[in-house]
């Protein structure tokens, strides 16, 4: 039952073995075929270390070790100046450090690395966390150098990068443990209290005999006390803070309700008369803690997404010193790179800083930043972004921005700043919740007074239930929980949302304005068509034109050269007329290439007018010789893939699409027509754009501005939502609400879809929370809600909001 593909699969990596492949490795007493030397080496290393069991337990196959992908030389990490960045020296002489492991695909990989490290002499502790892909290693530096530890990981086909945990990550981890502890205590003791409560609810022996009842009540009291004091402490603390600031938040009624219920129960226990509500109190604290824990985890995930941006930069770079032919390589910590340094990035390495390629051609994987999975080809003169990965061949680059000035760090700072700004919706939600709390407190006072006069025995449970059941937790969670989940999902698509509340406004926008044609086109001219008018063929005309332009850097020249291909004629006596055209001798003939006016003047011939008209809006170049016009070349800016699709989507959703561009009218009308956009205005100054946007807004439009985000800051600020898209380092100067790192219209489409979903979820949350609170308040005031129902209802309503929002993270 074995098909051919399976039989031919490499034992290690699962890729097909080449037909002429003869490599094999002996594992568990049998010879197995492998596809390449890399896999063979890794498999033999695994066998050599006695870890063949790995193959028994792994899930699926192991990634192919990349022969070129050696990473930085592990010996670098023995340098004390590099080690001081991430290695912690312990008082007993050993060292410890955290590493990020790449290529971990299944838990068996963790075991493999752990087992391998554990066998090394001098390593005292090695644990690998599969969830976070972190390895924690402790070793004795006088017994084993760090480079050997890393080297032995590398022989298994994994790569280890030093990891610097930042303050934020440590704080989050500490908080997470605190949440878990509070949850555990409330759950554990809560179960005991519930058990006694059930015995007391019934009418069996426990309630019949007074001394059992007494005993159960006292035990419940003592079990509730630690829950209230430890798990409930954060609620009381925040309530106290709110009261001191005279700004009642939602913790005030919660704490008050819990406090009243607890104190009343204590009194009942001491005096032996009245009801006890310990079970409601512990259940409430448990469910509330659960809700807060889930909310915290969603927020943690989204902030870790942001934080992970800064951790991509490597710790070590290879700097080239010297000049001319005498380059010398030296390893330096990335923290010490300077602007202007020349750096060598080997295949498989991560680009350490933003810069410009000074030598070499290679494809670069920018997926971490842009979400774009395909590598991008980069050559001399092009920019590379720190954090992207070099794939096939070595690159030399000139460092332009380091550390805090890199695009990565700037985007991180922008996002952090956006998070620190307390978005408008949070302010609004808090204000509404604050007012609502005031209403609740007043209602509680009135209810307490009413029941005290009507049925003195019942005022305590009714008031406590009212305070608890009407807590506006769900209401105030409705938006932040949805945004937190959405941001994490968008980050995966290469969309950085600086101001989260704009997501909701984006979904309600009516007009999409593109402020540059460059956002819809590729931005490079390409030969769109050739019309041959003379006796010479198309290929000949192209060859001649390319020969004339072979040394020119003009955009039209590049487009011609790209279209002509590698074989071209030789031109001599080239004479350049800047801004007009070029003339020169090819094969003994004089040719002219340039604008229509230039041809008319220099060659003395006039192109046929119909030819020019046929070209429409496109840019033209005319090739002529002394006898007449030979060909007309038309150039166009290619429309980006996805643009037409995006417009269709926008129109389908009833949105207006406009172009407000500073470019010439030809390009704008061409684009407007080609993409079926609603309107296009060319030659707009920033003031014009601002005026038009204001005019649209006065008519009730909600305007989204899509541009490169660099210029026109007032225009962007005037729009309801501004989206910056563009590639590379330009984005670091962007001032926009949302940044598309991918420079692709697909991520814009994903963003729109996500914003729509976010709005739906927010609405569901708000409607649900609103209805819940509106129903709960009168019901509780009428005395229909018992304290345990209140605890359950309130907690479930917020849990529902958190879980509903979590759907957005997918």
């Amino acid at each position, binding site marked *: 039952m074995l098909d051919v593909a399976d039989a031919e699969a490499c034992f290690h990596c699962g890729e097909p073995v080449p037909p002429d492949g003869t490599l094999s490795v002996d594992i*568990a007493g049998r010879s197995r075929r492998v596809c390449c030397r890399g896999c063979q080496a890794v498999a033999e290393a695994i066998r050599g270390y006695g870890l*063949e069991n790995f193959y*028994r337990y792994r899930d699926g196959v192991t990634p192919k070790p990349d022969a070129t992908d050696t990473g930085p030389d592990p010996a670098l990490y023995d340098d004390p100046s590099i080690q001081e960045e991430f290695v912690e020296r312990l008082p007993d002489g050993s060292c410890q450090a955290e590493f990020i492991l790449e290529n971990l695909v299944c838990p068996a990989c963790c075991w493999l690395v752990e087992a391998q490290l554990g066998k090394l002499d001098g390593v005292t502790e090695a644990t690998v966390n599969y969830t976070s892909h972190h390895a924690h290693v402790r070793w004795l530096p006088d017994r084993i150098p760090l480079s050997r530890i890393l080297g032995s990981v590398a022989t298994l086909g994994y790569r280890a990068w030093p990891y610097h945990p930042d303050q934020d990550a440590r704080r989050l981890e500490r908080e997470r443990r605190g949440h878990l502890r509070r949850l*555990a205590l409330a759950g554990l003791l809560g179960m005991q209290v519930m058990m006694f409560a059930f015995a007391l609810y019934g009418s069996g*022996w426990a309630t019949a005999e007074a001394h059992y009842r007494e005993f159960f009540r006292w*035990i419940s009291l003592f079990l509730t006390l630690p829950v209230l004091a430890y798990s409930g402490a954060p609620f009381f603390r925040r309530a106290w803070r709110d009261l001191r600031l005279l700004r009642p938040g939602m913790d005030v009624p919660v704490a008050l309700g819990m406090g009243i219920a607890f104190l009343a129960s204590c009194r009942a226990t001491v005096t032996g008369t009245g009801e006890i509500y310990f079970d409601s109190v512990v259940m409430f604290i448990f469910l509330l803690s659960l809700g807060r824990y889930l909310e915290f985890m969603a927020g943690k995930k989204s902030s870790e997404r942001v934080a992970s941006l800064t951790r991509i930069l490597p710790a070590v770079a290879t700097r080239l010193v010297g000049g001319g032919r005498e380059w010398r390589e030296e390893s330096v910590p990335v923290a010490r790179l300077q602007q202007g340094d020349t750096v060598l990035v080997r295949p498989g390495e991560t680009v350490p800083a933003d810069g410009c390629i000074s030598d070499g051609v290679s494809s670069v994987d920018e997926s971490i930043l842009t979400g774009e999975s395909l590598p991008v080809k980069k050559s001399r003169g092009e920019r590379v972004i720190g954090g992207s990965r070099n794939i096939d061949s070595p690159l030399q680059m000139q460092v332009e921005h380091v550390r805090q000035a890199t695009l990565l760090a700037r985007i991180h700072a922008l996002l952090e700043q956006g998070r620190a700004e307390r978005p408008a919706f949070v302010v609004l939600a808090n204000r509404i919740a604050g007012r609502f709390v005031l209403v609740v407190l007043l209602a509680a006072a009135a209810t307490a007074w009413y029941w005290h006069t009507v049925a003195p025995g019942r005022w305590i449970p009714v008031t406590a239930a009212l305070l608890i059941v009407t807590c506006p937790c769900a209401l105030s969670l409705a938006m932040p929980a949805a945004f937190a989940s959405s941001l994490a999902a968008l980050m995966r698509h290469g969309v950085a949302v600086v101001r989260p509340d704009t997501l909701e406004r984006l979904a309600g926008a009516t007009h999409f304005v593109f402020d540059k044609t460059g956002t819809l086109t590729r931005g490079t001219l390409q030969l769109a068509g050739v019309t041959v008018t003379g006796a010479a063929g198309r290929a000949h005309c192209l060859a001649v034109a390319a020969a004339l332009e072979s040394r020119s850097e003009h955009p039209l020249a590049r487009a011609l050269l790209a279209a002509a291909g590698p074989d071209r004629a030789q031109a001599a006596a080239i004479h350049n007329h800047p801004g007009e055209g070029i003339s020169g001798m090819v094969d003994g003939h004089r040719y002219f290439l340039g604008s229509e006016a230039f041809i008319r003047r220099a060659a003395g011939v006039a192109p046929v007018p119909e030819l020019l008209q046929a070209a429409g809006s496109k840019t033209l170049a005319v090739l002529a010789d002394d006898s007449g016009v030979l060909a007309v070349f038309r150039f166009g800016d290619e429309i980006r893939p996805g643009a037409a699709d995006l417009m269709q989507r926008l129109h389908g959703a009833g949105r207006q699409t406009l172009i407000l561009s500073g470019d010439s009218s030809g390009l704008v009308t061409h684009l407007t027509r080609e993409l079926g956009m609603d309107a296009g205005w060319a030659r707009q100054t920033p003031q014009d754009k601002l005026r038009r946007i204001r005019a649209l807004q006065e008519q009730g439009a909600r305007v989204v501005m899509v541009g490169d985000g660099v210029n026109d800051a007032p225009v962007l600020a005037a729009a309801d939502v501004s989206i910056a898209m563009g590639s590379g380092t330009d984005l670091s100067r962007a001032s926009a609400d949302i940044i598309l790192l991918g420079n692709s219209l697909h991520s814009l489409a994903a963003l729109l879809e996500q914003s729509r979903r976010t709005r739906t979820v927010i609405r569901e949350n708000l409607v649900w929370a609103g209805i819940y609170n509106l129903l709960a308040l009168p019901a509780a005031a009428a005395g229909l809600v018992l304290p345990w129902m209140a605890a359950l209802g309130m907690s479930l309503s917020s849990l529902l909001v958190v879980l509903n929002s979590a759907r957005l993270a997918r």
Partner: protein
Amino acid sequence: MNIIFLLIGISLVLVVIIGIVFFWAIKSGQYEDLEAPRYQILMDDDDTTAAPPEDDNQ
């Protein structure tokens, strides 16, 4: 029914023990990775004779 006092006493002692164990578990990071350890228990560090399962149908 006086046995109930003894039983409840025992259950409270157990709760305290469980609580202590749980707090220790959180502190020592038992809840940080919920994936890898379940495989670790299966993998015997010195058993290298077993054949991998992929092999059974060849």
